């Protein structure tokens, strides 16, 4: 009896949390930034986007360099080091760009969003906004959500571009792959619609998932210091798992069947 009751209570809690999350997402989606409060969103693009630039550029550079180094040692055995360019470019554009950006974004910006909104809730700033007839969904949540949606695809594109340049640095400048074949085989292999646009679609989906989880976890956190720390951890864990799982599904849909 007790067991059945706990199963029921757990299910109800999960379903109602999913419902609250969906309601909050619709609230944020409905509050598209308008001209008069666009500054709130720009401010958040600065916080989640510009402040993540450094970590994105540095990791993009090093991941591109490592891939060129590893790829070169394998490809050179077959005399196919000319294929280094497409290998680096395709893996970055299709997979690593969107996925690693989303993981870094979850750790760098997602956790901060959760902690910020959670603390706003704990210090009753959200309730005060409601007291003043200001909708916290519009004023606090929506700008952060849209800033995440705008920033993440931009960060993923910068990540891929920097990674390809990093691969060029190691492959061409240090290991002596021919610069002409690095770029020209890359150009004939990479397709704008199939590779670049699909990568952008991927990072849009990841942006939706990561920002949604981050904001909901903050908005729905238990307003104590312990609750906020739990919510922050859950944001990073859940969004990383969701990104990796969704990436497989999206890859299967986009590139699975020729």
């Amino acid at each position, binding site marked *: 009896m007790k067991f059945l009751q706990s199963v029921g209570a757990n299910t109800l809690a999960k379903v109602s949390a999913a419902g609250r999350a969906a309601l909050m997402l619709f609230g944020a989606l409905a509050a598209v930034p308008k001209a008069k409060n666009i*500054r709130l969103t*720009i401010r958040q693009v600065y916080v989640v986007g510009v402040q993540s630039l450094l970590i994105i550029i540095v990791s993009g550079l090093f991941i591109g360099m490592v891939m060129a180094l590893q790829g070169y040692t394998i490809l050179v055995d077959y005399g196919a080091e000319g294929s280094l360019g497409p290998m680096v470019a395709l893996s970055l554009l299709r997979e690593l760009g969107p996925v690693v950006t989303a993981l870094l974004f979850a750790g760098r910006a997602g956790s901060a969003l959760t902690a910020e909104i959670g603390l706003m809730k704990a210090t009753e700033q959200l309730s005060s906004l409601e007291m003043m007839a200001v909708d916290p969904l519009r004023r606090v949540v929506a700008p952060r959500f849209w800033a995440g949606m705008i920033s993440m695809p931009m960060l993923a*594109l910068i990540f891929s*571009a920097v990674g390809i340049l990093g691969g060029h640095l190691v492959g061409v400048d240090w290991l002596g792959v021919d610069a002409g074949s690095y770029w020209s085989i890359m150009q004939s292999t990479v397709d704008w619609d199939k590779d670049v646009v699909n990568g952008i679609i991927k990072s849009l989906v990841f942006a939706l998932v990561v920002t949604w989880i981050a904001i909901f976890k903050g908005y729905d956190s238990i307003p104590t210091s312990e609750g906020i720390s739990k919510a922050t951890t859950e944001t990073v864990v859940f969004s990383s798992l969701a990104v990796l799982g969704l990436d497989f599904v999206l890859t299967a849909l986009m590139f699975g069947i020729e």
Partner: protein
Amino acid sequence: MNKYKTELLVGVFVVMTVGAVLLLALNVANKSMTSDGDTYTLYAKFDNIGGLKERSAVKVGGVTIGRVASISLDKEDYTPVVKLSINQQYGEFPETSSVSILTSGLLGEQYVGFQPGFSFDGVANLEDGDYLQDTKSALVLEDLIGQFLFNRGSEE
């Protein structure tokens, strides 16, 4: 952090993204080449297309003049039909031209090699929708080895 500086840095962020998109579009995906203006269509039937794929290049003496638009199987005689879209600027090939499937390098990609034929009186130029008559199939390594062994066997 004042408003001006925030907006300036967001502007820098946007400009960096535009730079990344330009690099990806022009240098990596070569967008300018893929959206190449007017084309016309030629068809060629092969016995075996090997590893030819859609978007493989069509080359005359190494110069890309078009791409493979699609590959399908003829329903009547079950031979592969390759649809080639050729840039309009290379519009005047005589009917005696031939195509063959070649490989770039030992392990490279396969492409369609196009040999322009001689034009003399009475030979029209290829037009949109024409079939190329003279085709050579892809070289399949297993067939080649099989033939070699067969020849060796019959010599002894």
